[in-house]
C-alpha cells in the first residue's frame, strides 16, 4: 500500500516543470564542467593532477547542488498534505504511520537520487582521465553524498511535520541545513591547534557537516586550515553522525504522524486586554511587544499594507524579532569583548569575520521566507484580488510590502551592530573597514529582499517562490565560496577574484581582512554588481506588480 504513496510522490514531483528544469540544469552543469576541463591536446598527464582537479570541482558542485535542492521537496511534503486536507485522508486509511513516512521519504529520495544519477556520466569521465581511485575516492564520495541525501531528507521531513505553513517549513529546513553544514564548522575553524577539551569537541562537531568529509576525499586539507595537517577519518565520523541523525529524525517524524497532529482546537482569540492583571504583567515581561494585545486602528500616516504584513506574519512579528536581535547582539558583544580583552587570541579580523558570517546567515535564512511570500502568498490565498479591489495603487501596495521586509532587515542588521561599535571603540582605525563591511551587508540584505520579492511576483505558489529564492541566494553567497575553497589548486587567483566579486559576504570578509580573504580586493566592484542586480530585480518586481494589478 505504501507503494502507492511512493508512486504518487515521485510522479507528482516528476510531472512538475521545476523537476524537469532541475534535471536539465544539473546535466548541463556537469557536461560543461567536463567539457571545460577535458584535455585539449594529445599529451598524457601522468601525475593525474588534471583529473583530480575535475574530480574536486565535481565533488564540491554535487555537494552544493544537494545542499541547495534536497531540503526543498521533503520540507513541503507533510505540511502541504496537512494544508490541503489530504493528510487526514492518509491518517484515516489503514496505512501505518511508518508506511506513510516511508512512502513519502522514498518518493522524495528517488527523485533526489535521479539528480545524483545524472552526475554519474561526469564522474565516469573524471575517472577515465586517470589518477583517481574508484574504490578509495569515487565510491566513498557517492556514499557520503548518498548519506547527505537521506540525512537532509529526514531532517526536512521532521521540519515539515512540525511546521504550520510551507514557508515556515522551508525556513526551518534550510536553517537546519545551514546550521549543520556550515555553522558547525565554525568552532573548529577558530579553535584548531589549541590545547584543551574544547578543540577536541570542536573537531568532532565539524564532522556533523559533510564539507570536511568531501574535502578529505577530494584531497584538500580542511576548511580554513592554518597549515596544520587535518585529522583524518572525517568521512567515517560523518557517516556515523548521519546514521544516528537519520534514525532520530525518522523516529520523531513517525511519532508525530498520527491523528493528534490534526487534533488542534481552533484558537479562541483571547486577547491580553481581557486577562487578569497578573497575566498581563507577566506577558509584558515575556513579550515586550505582546502579539495578543488588542491593536489600535492603523494610523493615518502608516501604509496599511505594511501594518498588515507585520500583523499577519508569525515569525516577522516584533516579539520574535526583538528576541532574535537581542540574542545576536549579546553574542556579537561577547565575541568582541572576548577578542579585544585578550581572553582569546583570535584577533579582531577573525571576530569581524565571524560577525559577518553570523549576519549573512541571518539574512539568508530569513529574507527569502519573508520576501518570496509578499505577492505569491496573496495570490495563493485570494487576498490579491481583495487588495486589487481597494483604491491602493500598485506602488503603494509594493512599497508597503517592501517596507515591512526592509524594517525587519534593518532590525536584523542591528543584531551585530553593537559588536562592531565595540570593535571601533577599542580599535578606532577599524572604523572605515567596519563601515565598508556594513555597506556590503546592506547591499546583501537589499539584494536578498528584492530578489526574493521579484521571484515571488513571478510564482503562483509561495513554496516554489521560497525554494527558488533560497536556491538563488544560496548559489550566489555559498555556491561561489566553493571557488574560494578550491583556491590555489583548482582555481587561479584571478578566477576566484572574479567569481567572488558577485558575493557580498566575500566582499565584507575581504574588507574585514578575515583569514583566507586578505589576498582579494572585491569592494568597489562588488558594490557596482550589487547595484546592478538590485536594479534588475526592482525592474522585474515593478513591472510584474503593475501587470498583476491591471484588469486581465
Amino acid at each position, binding site marked *: 500500500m505504501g507503494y502507492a504513496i511512493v508512486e504518487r510522490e515521485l510522479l507528482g514531483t516528476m510531472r512538475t516543470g521545476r523537476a524537469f528544469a532541475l534535471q536539465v540544469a544539473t546535466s548541463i552543469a556537469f557536461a560543461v564542467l567536463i567539457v571545460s576541463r577535458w584535455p585539449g591536446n594529445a599529451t598524457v598527464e601522468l601525475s593525474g593532477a588534471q583529473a583530480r582537479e575535475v574530480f574536486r570541482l565535481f565533488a564540491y558542485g554535487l555537494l552544493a547542488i544537494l545542499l541547495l535542492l534536497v531540503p526543498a521537496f521533503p520540507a513541503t511534503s507533510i505540511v502541504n498534505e496537512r494544508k490541503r486536507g489530504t493528510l487526514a485522508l492518509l491518517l484515516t486509511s489503514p496505512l501505518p504511520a511508518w508506511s506513510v513516512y516511508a512512502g513519502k521519504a522514498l518518493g522524495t529520495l528517488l527523485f533526489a537520487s535521479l539528480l545524483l544519477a545524472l552526475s554519474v556520466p561526469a564522474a565516469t569521465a573524471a575517472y577515465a582521465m586517470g589518477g583517481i581511485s574508484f574504490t578509495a575516492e569515487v565510491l566513498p564520495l557517492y556514499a557520503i553524498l548518498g548519506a547527505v541525501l537521506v540525512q537532509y531528507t529526514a531532517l526536512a521531513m521532521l521540519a515539515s511535520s512540525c511546521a504550520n*505553513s510551507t514557508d515556515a517549513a522551508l525556513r526551518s529546513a534550510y536553517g537546519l541545513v545551514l546550521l549543520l553544514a556550515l555553522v558547525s564548522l565554525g568552532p573548529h575553524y577558530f579553535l584548531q591547534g589549541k590545547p584543551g577539551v574544547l578543540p577536541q569537541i570542536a573537531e568532532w562537531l565539524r564532522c556533523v557537516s559533510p564539507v570536511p568529509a568531501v574535502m578529505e576525499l577530494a584531497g584538500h586539507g580542511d576548511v580554513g586550515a592554518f597549515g596544520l595537517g587535518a585529522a583524518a577519518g572525517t568521512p567515517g565520523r560523518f557517516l556515523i553522525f548521519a546514521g544516528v541523525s537519520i534514525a532520530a529524525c525518522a523516529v520523531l517524524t513517525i511519532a508525530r504522524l498520527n491523528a493528534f497532529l490534526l487534533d488542534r482546537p*481552533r*484558537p*479562541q*482569540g*483571547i*486577547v491580553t486586554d*481581557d486577562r487578569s492583571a497578573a497575566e498581563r504583567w507577566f506577558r509584558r515581561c515575556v513579550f515586550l511587544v505582546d*502579539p495578543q494585545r*488588542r*491593536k489600535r*486602528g*492603523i*494610523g*493615518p500616516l*502608516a501604509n*496599511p*499594507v505594511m*501594518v*498588515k504584513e507585520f*500583523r*499577519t*506574519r*508569525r515569525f516577522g*512579528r516584533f516579539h520574535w524579532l526583538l528576541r532574535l536581535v537581542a540574542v545576536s547582539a549579546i553574542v556579537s558583544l561577547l565575541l568582541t569583548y572576548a577578542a579585544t580583552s585578550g581572553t582569546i587570541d583570535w584577533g579582531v579580523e577573525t571576530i569581524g569575520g565571524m560577525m559577518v558570517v553570523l549576519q549573512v546567515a541571518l539574512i539568508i535564512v530569513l529574507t527569502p521566507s519573508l520576501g518570496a511570500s509578499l505577492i505569491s502568498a496573496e495570490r495563493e*490565498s*485570494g*487576498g*490579491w*484580488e*481583495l*487588495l*486589487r*479591489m*481597494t*483604491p*491602493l495603487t500598485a506602488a503603494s501596495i509594493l512599497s508597503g510590502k517592501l517596507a515591512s521586509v526592509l524594517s525587519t532587515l534593518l532590525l536584523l542588521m542591528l543584531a551585530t551592530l553593537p559588536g562592531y561599535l565595540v570593535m571601533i571603540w577599542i580599535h578606532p582605525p577599524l572604523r572605515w573597514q567596519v563601515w565598508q563591511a556594513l555597506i556590503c551587508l546592506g547591499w546583501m540584505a537589499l539584494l536578498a529582499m528584492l530578489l526574493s520579492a521579484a521571484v515571488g511576483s513571478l510564482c503562483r505558489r509561495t513554496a516554489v517562490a521560497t525554494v527558488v529564492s533560497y536556491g538563488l541566494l544560496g548559489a550566489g553567497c555559498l555556491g561561489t565560496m566553493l571557488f574560494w575553497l578550491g583556491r590555489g589548486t583548482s582555481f587561479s587567483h584571478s578566477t576566484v577574484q572574479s567569481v567572488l566579486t558577485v558575493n557580498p559576504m566575500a566582499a565584507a570578509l575581504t574588507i574585514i581582512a578575515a583569514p583566507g580573504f586578505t589576498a582579494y580586493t572585491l569592494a568597489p566592484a562588488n558594490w557596482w554588481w550589487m547595484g546592478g542586480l538590485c536594479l534588475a530585480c526592482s525592474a522585474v518586481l515593478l513591472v510584474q506588480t503593475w501587470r498583476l494589478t*491591471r*484588469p*486581465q
Partner: protein
Amino acid sequence: MNDSSPVVALRELTKVYGRLTALDRLSLALDRGRILGLIGPNGAGKTTAIKILVGLARPSGGSATIAGCDCLRRPKQLKRLVGYMPDTFGSYDNMRVWEYLDFFGAAFGIRRAARKRRIDEVMAITGSASMRDRYVESLSHGMKQRVGIARTLLHDPSVLILDEPANGLDPEARIEMRQILLRLAELGKTLIVSSHILAELSRVCDLIAILNRGRLEAFGTLAEIMKNVSQQRTMEVQLVGREHLATAAEIVRGYLESDAEVVPSPAEATVRFRTGKADRELVGLLARLAMSHVDLTQFREIPTDLEDAFLSVTNSLRDQQTPTGVAS
C-alpha cells in the same frame, strides 16, 4: 446619473479568451435596491461577468457601467462604488477579525475614528460582532462569509457583488445569509448574487438572469422567466395506495402527447407528468382516471420553482446549440 436610470448596466458585454467565448453580448440592466440572481451551469460565464463588473477583467467588447461609472475606464471611482466578495474568502493568517476589517477600512482610506464606528456598524449588520477578537483562519465557513460581507460593506458601496455567498453553508447559515441579503436590500443596496443553490436565490432575488455558455438565456422575475421559457407545467396525481400506480400511469400516458414525460413514484404513490394541455383539456384525464376506479386523493399542479426554470432553459438549449467552448 438620475434616480430612474439603472444602477448596473451591461451592454453587449463580450469576453473572448483566444478561441473561447466566455461572455457573448451580455446585456442587462438593474435598478437601485434590487437583488439580481446570476445563475448558470459551471462555465456559463457568471464569474467572468462579475470580474468585468468589479474591474478585475477587461472586456473584449461592449461596456459595463455601475452608477454611471465605466467599469474599465474609471477603476478608482468604481472601487468606491462596488463591494465585491469573491468565491474564495481571501483570509490572512494570524489576523483577528477586527484587525482584518481595520486593514481593509484603512486601505479604503477611511479615517481611524470613522473606521472604528464603521467596523462596529458592519459587524452589527452582518451579525459578526461576537467574532471581533477571533482569528480569521479559525472561523467556520459561515462565519467567514459574514465577515466577508462585513468587509464589502466597509466603504458603504451602493452595489454589492457576491460570488457564491451561500456555497458550503449549512442550512441554518443559509437562512441567516438570506436574512442578511434582504437586510442589505432594505438598506438600499443593489445586489448581484451568483449561486448554485437555486432554492436560496429564488427566495431573495427580485430578478433572475440565467447564463449558459456565455449567453444570457433568460432575464426577469421568476414568473416572467417561467412564462417565457416553458409552455409546460408539472401536474401530480396522488393515489391512496400504490396498487393502482401502474394503471394510473398507463392512463396518463395514453391521454397525453406521445413524448410526454410521466414519472410514477411507488414510494409516494404519485404519478407526476409535464404537459402543455390547458385545464379544460385535463378535465378529461381526471374523468378517465375516476372511471377506471383508480383511488386518487389529489389532482394538482406543482408550482414551478427556479430549479425547474433553470433546467428548462439549459435542457431546451442543449439540443439547439452547438458547443462554443467552456467559459472560466
